[in-house]
């Protein structure tokens, strides 16, 4: 934020311009009792070099992912970012990529968003993609609202293995709508299929299932969506680890009606939890209920290829309180990052990366189980995250990992899940770990 100083003379001029005689008169409408009578208690002013010392001292408390490698994922994943992407992202032309009020003036910005839509469409096998929502949690909530508008029903079924933060966000968004939210329990690391039959009824607008789920488990989306469709209910698949799209069957080929997900894994660092990026994808027949807008490809008056912003007519600047969403901005710079990342990987690259993630996670699980200090509570198919129970002291385990420059895995017990998970750890393993490192981790944890 910019600091704009003003002199006493300038203040007088401004007051005169708006027609009041003094600052006191300007703030007359603010009741006396809410005014601060004393001066703000601020520390004495520092010199520039004193200030630098203090700020740098604070900044040095931060650890980065070169110092510490994370074994934690749970919705945000550390993946390698190629130097070429980092170099390209330094180009200033990308930094002001907000969509302007006359969007068609900025053809390059529109094309960038269009390319992102195309990438996500190919990966999800969904024809319509709303790009650049802030994060996966709000994209999931927008998907739920979309389902309510499409079905005019008033019940939403959530898998209990939807990320707990996503669940909270959905509940916050739906609270004013008076929606009946039903939680679907899990069994052996996956959403309980037989329970869905009991919860599903004619009032159900949507069933929301994350896959890979919060425990990394790969859900049987085909069976779940087939069951869901029996009641004219929409099936929403949530994805927190977009890298999984490289090897897992696409949601569009498994019966998903709406897909909401985080695309942080595509070229974005963890950034202390944000900014990230997300997408919402759907079928063509639901296009009029999407939140936000999409970019379309067309021809200009000379017949040349060009891009336009389309389906804007239901946005809040036009429709006010009747808009499909109050979502009013996006993460275009992060869209650009994802485009560069995905173009560097290519079709073969994303497949290979995705497979490496899968294999490395399975390798570490196997080694940990072999050590005898860990057990696996579930026998389930999983992607690059898995749940194991630790037999020893959790505090000692965490200390040992940190001493070896590793961020410990997630302690699942901190979330209020129904079973006892006090001893459970959720490991995330991405391509950043070599086999030697994974063996070293096993050795550290087997002591």
């Amino acid at each position, binding site marked *: 934020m910019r600091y704009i100083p003003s002199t006493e003379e300038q203040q007088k001029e401004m007051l005169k311009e708006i027609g009041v005689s003094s600052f006191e008169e300007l703030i007359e409408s603010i009741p006396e009792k809410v005014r601060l009578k004393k001066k703000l208690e601020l520390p004495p002013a520092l010199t520039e070099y004193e200030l630098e010392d203090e700020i740098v001292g604070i900044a040095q408390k931060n650890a980065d992912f070169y110092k510490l490698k994370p074994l934690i994922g749970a919705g945000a994943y550390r993946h390698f970012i190629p130097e070429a992407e980092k170099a390209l992202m330094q180009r200033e032309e990308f930094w002001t990529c907000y969509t302007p009020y006359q969007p068609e003036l900025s053809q390059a910005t529109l094309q960038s968003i269009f390319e992102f839509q195309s990438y996500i469409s190919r990966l999800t096998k969904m024809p319509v993609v709303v790009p650049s929502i802030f994060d996966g949690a709000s994209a999931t909530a927008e998907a739920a609202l979309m389902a309510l508008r499409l079905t005019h029903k008033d019940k939403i079924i959530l898998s209990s293995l939807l990320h707990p933060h996503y669940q909270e966000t959905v509940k916050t968004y739906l609270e004013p709508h008076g929606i009946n939210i039903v939680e679907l329990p899990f069994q052996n690391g996956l959403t309980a299929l037989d329970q869905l039959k009991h919860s599903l009824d004619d009032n159900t607008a949507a069933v929301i299932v994350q896959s890979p789920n919060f425990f990394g488990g790969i859900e049987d989306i085909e069976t779940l969506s087939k069951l869901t469709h029996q009641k004219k209910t929409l099936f929403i698949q949530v994805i927190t680890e977009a890298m999984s799209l490289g090897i897992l069957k696409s949601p569009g080929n498994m019966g998903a009606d709406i897909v909401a997900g985080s695309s942080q894994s595509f070229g974005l660092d963890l950034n202390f939890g944000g900014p990230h990026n997300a997408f919402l994808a759907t079928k063509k027949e639901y296009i*009029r209920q999407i939140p936000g807008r999409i970019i379309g490809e067309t021809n200009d008056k000379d017949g040349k290829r060009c891009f336009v912003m389309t389906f804007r*007519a*239901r946005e809040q600047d*036009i*429709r006010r309180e009747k808009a499909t969403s109050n979502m009013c901005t996006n993460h275009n710079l992060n869209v650009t990052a994802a485009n560069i990342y995905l173009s560097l990987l290519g079709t073969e690259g994303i497949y290979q990366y995705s497979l490496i993630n899968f294999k490395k996670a399975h390798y570490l699980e196997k080694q940990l189980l072999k050590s005898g200090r860990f057990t696996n509570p579930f026998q389930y198919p999983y992607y690059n995250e898995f749940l194991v129970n630790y037999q020893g002291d959790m505090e000692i385990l965490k200390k040992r990992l940190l001493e070896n420059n590793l961020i410990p895995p997630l302690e699942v017990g901190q979330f209020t899940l129904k079973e006892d998970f006090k001893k459970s750890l959720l490991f995330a393993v991405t391509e950043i770990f070599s086999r030697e490192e994974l063996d070293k981790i096993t050795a550290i944890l087997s002591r």
Partner: protein
Amino acid sequence: MSNKVMEGFYYSKSDEWVKVENGIGTVGITFYAQDQLGDIVYAEEIKTGTHLSKGDTLTTVESVKAVAEIFTPISGEVIEVNGIVANDPSQINQDPYGNGWFAKIKMSNPEETKELMSASDYSEYRKL
């Protein structure tokens, strides 16, 4: 002004028309309304059996540049909707007083037409 208004129809200030036959009102939007909206690309589904009061939203239509609410100028129950419009919304532009009608409403208060305008009043109101 020949095709801009239809004699014998009733008109609302928000540019809807009603044709009344045997207590049933057929509702559409005027030539002026469709002209203002531009090319209409979508009309939201209207459900038969819906009970509406005068001024309620009957449907929403979307043109390339706007989304607009269509209000019912009469109260009653929707007994028929125009499938032609759902499949081909451009009919609203091409034939606003014919093929482009939206719904037939069984009027619960036939007196309401008295509050609406005649063709000549509407022509004057919109300076057609």
